[in-house]
């Protein structure tokens, strides 16, 4: 599986995502510029965290107009795996690939720490190596992570099993239904505020994110 890590102006977790996939998981992965007009030859897309365009309007709002996004949307519609963490999640919602929106944290502050999560749905192509309702810990680092959607959308997300990760102890940002990560209805697009790519090496003190990438790279037998 060949993966593209998209680099927007202001992306800054691109290295982290690349290293997690390439160095830690041995995946076939390449950086791709936001100016690229083709993703031909790629089987999946990884959108990193950071502050695309400084987050100067709303997080992710300007990035969605980058040339490469047309191709990201094409791949997403074709069912290829598309993953966005943090600013990547924000971009995916702004681009309409995921429902809802991410508001400023209730605290009005940036927050960086490790939080407890529940793997709500372990039946996705991103999470099948976790056990059902497993508790994991992942770092978060964001100022705009409070997931918001209207009630009908929330109900739908819950009913369809699109809520993949939920904050399990403290809700760090005011997210509705404690949502930390969701997929689209088809299940091939995952957006999450926590950073699994920061938790893939024992030297950094946490490997709970590793199985997300392993899940992606080794499709379950059932797939």
């Amino acid at each position, binding site marked *: 599986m060949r993966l593209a890590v998209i680099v927007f102006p202001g992306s800054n977790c691109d290295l982290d995502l690349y290293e997690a996939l390439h160095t830690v998981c041995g995946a076939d992965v390449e950086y791709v510029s936001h100016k690229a007009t083709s993703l031909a030859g790629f089987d999946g897309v990884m959108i990193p965290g950071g502050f695309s365009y400084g987050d100067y*309007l*709303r997080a992710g*709002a*300007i990035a969605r*107009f980058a040339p490469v996004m047309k191709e990201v949307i094409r791949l997403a519609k074709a069912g290829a795996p598309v993953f966005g963490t943090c600013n990547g999640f924000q971009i995916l*919602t*702004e681009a309409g690939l995921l*429902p*809802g*929106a991410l*508001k*400023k944290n*209730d605290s*009005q502050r940036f927050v960086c720490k490790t939080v407890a999560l529940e793997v709500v749905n372990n039946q996705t192509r991103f999470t099948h190596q976790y056990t059902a309702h497993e508790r994991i810990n992942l770092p978060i680092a964001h100022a705009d992570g409070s997931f*918001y*959607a*209207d009630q009908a959308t929330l109900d739908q997300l819950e009913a369809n099993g699109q809520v993949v990760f939920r904050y399990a102890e403290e809700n760090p940002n*005011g997210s509705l239904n404690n949502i930390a990560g969701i997929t689209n209805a088809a299940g091939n697009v995952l957006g999450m505020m926590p950073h699994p790519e920061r938790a893939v090496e024992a030297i950094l003190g946490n490997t709970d994110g590793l199985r997300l990438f392993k899940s992606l790279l080794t499709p379950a037998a059932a797939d």
Partner: protein
Amino acid sequence: MKVRIFVTYKQSVFDPQGETIKDAIHALGHQGVTGVTVGKFFDVTFAPETADVEAAVQAIADQLLVNFNMETYTYQVMEEK
């Protein structure tokens, strides 16, 4: 020509910022304040020759300035100074 575009959260969206500011205002002794909401505005200046500014404003708001999942907007054409 200058247009001021006001963007706010939709009413149904909880905005703790307004509450926090209201509390701070009360702490300053202005008990008469019963509510505070916060928004942003964009003053967008158009070249004088621009045709159909209002259409452009709507397009810019729809595509870029407003996230309709949570926000809504109004605008107002400003007098030249």
